[in-house]
């Protein structure tokens, strides 16, 4: 059974002419790491909001861990954790008070008026998580005095305190510096390895989706493609050889003779597929002074895909 099942989901906001999400279907298996990509306004946050029961759907069916989001919302909420696009912390409480509040709402421990009075298991879990994410020094400071990065890390801790089966991350690294971003992903990957947590991610940093199991691209409210990053890259882009030589004209003549297309702007770029770089180079006799292989990134494939399918929503 899929952990997330979405069938013909439609969401039309009040007064909107077109649906924000228009008849989409997809499934996520237990333990999968799925990236849900798309340009601004494509329907990513709308979809994730419906999946996390914070927004009603117009039609269709969504099941999380076998529970219907419309009729069994409470059971769905038991199984999920979420990091919203905008921080949803109480700025006047301390970091630990925010975590304590969350843990109590999720029935993980009884409420006590001070950290010292909370259960040993709770205190240990909070301290462990705080150290791993690197906010142990800020744990007892008011949230309003923490940096954006620290607040994001705090939200990560909070979302994991009840060990959810599915973790929804709605642009979780927005506003984080590169070091914090990397630290966060190291931690999320560790959580995934250790607990087999299913992760459903939306992000604008396409490099964060390079190592996911599946990429789904939504555009104009419709799922445009659902494939592994490698499949997506292979279907859209070719590897490229970047070459140059002292006798560039000889090199270009050779490439033409081998029936290889090329672009010669600055350096000579030779896209290739159905063959290997070794085979291409073996056919060249002109001495090379530059030789590089360019592997297309997921971002290249994503941008190409949007270009082919009509581009981003403005």
């Amino acid at each position, binding site marked *: 059974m899929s952990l997330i099942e979405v069938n013909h989901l439609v969401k039309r*906001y*009040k007064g909107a002419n077109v649906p924000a999400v228009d008849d989409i279907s997809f499934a996520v298996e237990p333990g999968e790491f799925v990236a849900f990509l798309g340009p601004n306004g494509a329907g990513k946050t709308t979809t994730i909001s419906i999946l*996390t*029961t*914070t*927004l*009603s759907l117009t039609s269709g069916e969504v099941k999380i861990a076998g529970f219907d989001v419309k009729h069994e919302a*409470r*059971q769905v*909420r*038991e199984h*999920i954790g*979420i990091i*919203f696009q*905008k*921080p*949803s*912390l*109480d*700025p*006047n*409480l301390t970091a630990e*008070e925010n975590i*304590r*509040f*969350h*843990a*109590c*709402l*999720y*029935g*993980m421990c*009884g*409420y006590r*008026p001070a950290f010292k009075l909370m259960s*040993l*298991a*709770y*205190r*240990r*879990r909070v*301290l*462990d*998580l705080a*150290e*791993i994410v*690197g906010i*142990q020094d800020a*744990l*007892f400071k*008011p949230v309003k005095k923490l940096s954006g990065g620290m607040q994001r890390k705090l939200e990560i801790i909070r979302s994991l*305190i*009840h*060990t959810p089966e599915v973790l929804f991350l709605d642009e979780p690294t927005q506003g984080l510096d590169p070091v914090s971003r990397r*630290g966060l992903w*190291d*931690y999320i990957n*560790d*959580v995934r390895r*250790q607990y087999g947590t299913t992760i459903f991610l939306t992000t604008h940093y396409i490099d964060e989706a390079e190592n996911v199991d599946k990429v789904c691209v939504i555009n104009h409210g419709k799922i445009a493609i659902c494939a592994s990053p490698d499949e997506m890259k292979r279907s859209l882009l070719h590897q490229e050889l970047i070459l140059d030589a002292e006798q560039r004209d000889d090199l270009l003549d050779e490439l033409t003779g081998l029936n290889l297309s090329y672009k010669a702007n600055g350096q000579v770029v030779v896209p290739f597929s159905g063959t290997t770089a070794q085979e291409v180079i073996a056919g060249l006799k002109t001495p090379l002074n530059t030789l590089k292989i360019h592997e297309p990134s997921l971002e290249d494939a994503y941008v190409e895909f949007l270009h082919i399918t009509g581009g981003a929503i403005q």
Partner: protein
Amino acid sequence: MNDTLSVKRVTPVQGMITSKPVALARRKSKVSRELNAVSAVLAREITLFFKSPGTIIMSLAMPIIMMGMIGGNMMQNMSSGLGFQLGEFMLVGMLVNMLFMTTTMGMATLVDDHETDFNQEMLVSPVSRYSLVVGKILGASFAAIVSMAGTLIVGLIMGITLHIGQLLLILALSPLICLSGGALSMILIGLIKSKKTANFAVMIITMPQMFLSGAIIPISNSHGALLVLSRLMPMTYCLDLTRAVVYAGTPEYNSVVMFNPLINFAAIVGLTMACLIIGTYFFARTEKNR
């Protein structure tokens, strides 16, 4: 087992899970989880109260304005020919009014929670929406009870006193009164998304209650539309029940108390339940249906 943990404990490698974290077991009983959620929401409100000097000052300043200034002025100018002591009548009115007004103001912080997206955090949790709202109302009641205490002190300074038994009975009724006020305010505040509108809504909710329910002006001679409005207001019954408790066994009872206490109690419970259901529905619906 050593039950102490140092906050400054250090783990070996930052960024790595080096050992399996301690698992927190979920509570099994649904009732226990809901009560725990109510306690968490209530405790958050009390924590926020003590962290907000403005709220503390306002809770103490309101009794001076309401009882000291408005009440004092009315006592000096309107106390003749009533058949009962206006001071005691007004003190009870102000106590109930303070519970209603301060609870309503506390409920308006739901709009702050909406602005900081904290409502999302609450609404995505696996607890009943009623638990969230009841916790919020009880939390707002804390500030209300502080204001009530302030009103009693102002009354004492003005020479109006209640017996300890009367005070304890009022204190026992205060959670019901706060719940009633909070539930009523949910109907409007649950629909509001801006702070400016919320402040206006607090006035809309509290002012008519104060003047039409008999908090400071007797309403035994009201008629027409004002009579109908007064009978629709939960505060009317809260006030009458409180006065029934305070004036029980006194010669003024019949001049001051309008209804049988059982009728008052039933009306409070009925109106509170209705307001709570409608208000909670609006609150959850507006957050979810966009």
